[in-house]
């Protein structure tokens, strides 16, 4: 009995590893906007170096991004973003480790746009939170484009907005993600 269990266990992992199908990119995009409606200038940044990998078999998905590679419209915003808010020397990376729950609904061999439910742990500014969001997966040949839009409360990640800039900097950031993965 014990042996059977163990064999089954080994076999399943073995097969998963053998037939694992990975999709990957290092040039995914994240755009965020944290501007209040009253702000005269837009507080938004973009990162074009998002690393992202997806296992289409298990639905496991991982994102990773270097905070210092966020670009801004103004040099000073870059400095403040890194120094005062994200503390990128202390917390150089943000990441997400999660799973596409409905991975079985997505057919990676058939072109089309599929809805995806994602759940997992997002770490920003050294704080990890469990999140669940929805997005789309557009399959086209050997590529899969992941898209998602969601918002993040800065307070949840211990990023404080001082009163002094509260009329410009929103307490909640909208995050848009677009990542074009290719089959490995």
């Amino acid at each position: 009995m014990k042996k059977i269990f163990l064999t089954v266990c080994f076999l399943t992992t073995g097969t998963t590893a053998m037939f694992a199908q990975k999709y990957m990119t290092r040039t995914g995009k994240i755009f965020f906007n944290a501007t209040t409606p009253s702000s005269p200038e837009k507080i938004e940044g973009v990162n074009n170096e998002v690393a992202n990998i997806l296992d289409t078999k298990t639905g496991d998905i991982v994102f990773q991004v270097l905070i210092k590679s966020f670009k801004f419209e103004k040099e000073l915003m870059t400095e403040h973003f890194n120094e005062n808010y994200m503390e990128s020397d202390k917390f150089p990376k943000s990441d997400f480790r999660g799973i596409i729950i409905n991975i079985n609904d997505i057919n990676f061999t058939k072109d089309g746009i599929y809805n995806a439910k994602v759940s997992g742990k997002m770490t920003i500014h050294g704080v990890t939170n469990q999140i669940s969001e929805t997005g789309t997966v557009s399959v086209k040949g050997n590529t899969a484009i992941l898209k998602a839009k969601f918002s993040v409360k800065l307070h949840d990640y211990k990023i404080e907005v001082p009163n002094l800039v509260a009329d410009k900097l929103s307490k909640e950031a909208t995050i848009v993600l677009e990542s074009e993965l290719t089959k490995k």
Partner: protein
Amino acid sequence: MRKIILLSFLFSGVFTLAHAQSDSLMDMLNEGAAPMKKDAVSATFKATRIINGSSVENLGAGTLDFRISHRFGQLNQGAQNFFGLDNATTRIGLDYGITKWLMIGLGHSVLNKEDDGFAKIKLLRQQKYGMPFTMSYAGSVSIQTTPAPQLPAGDKWLFTNNLYYTHQVLIARKFSDRISLQLMPTVVHYNLVDSTKFSNNTFAIGAGGRIKVSKRIAVTGEYYYRITNANMQYNGQPTYNAVSIGVDIETGGHVFQLMVTNSQGLSDRSFIGQTTDSWTKGALHFGFNISRVFTVVKPKGFKKPVGKSWE
């Protein structure tokens, strides 16, 4: 019972596997990744000046900095002059970052009707792993534009009498998030000094630093010690080494620097060698610098993505 143990064993196995899966994916991402760029340390100081003198900070490329510096009269002038507030001098300046390692600036000071210009070049950048300090060169020239003095017949007043030059090497290290220190070996050349008794060159070593007390507030200090020519007189008065303490307050696009200093002069040549007030006599000046930056050329790399999904 045995089954339960087995089942729990199995589940724990599955759980570790699932956990290991996201870890191994993360490892795959890290494996092929380009090696971390040699991480340059940023924001050693909040502003391009520590108090009176230059810090190793440069403006970003395409950034314009409008600076107003104010030094009030001596605090010990008493109520008659409202503790110095009646006798203020000002410098108005415009600095511009040409590249991320080269900035230039122009300014005009009320004191001595002085025009000055400077250039600051970043030579080495402190790195997280590697270069232990940042090094810059700062050079400035100043022109006094007060009217030429009445000279005895036959003597000629040369335009070059109005010129002063300063060369500095700035060496700074950000020791931690909070603490940064800077040393600045300096030479000031005075084309005209009070008397032939004094050298035209003053060698000095400056030391400055900051301690951040919060994310947006830092306490600063700056001291210029003259190695040679310390006995130089200026307008017949003895001169002292410039000592300043201050506070930096950052508010979004502005940096306010408040300070108490024994120097009323704002140009390099005047505070390093021509400070005629002394801390021990209480002849101190309260002052502030206000800096407001404007983005003239937008940094490369920021391009808002276009398309419906980005709206």
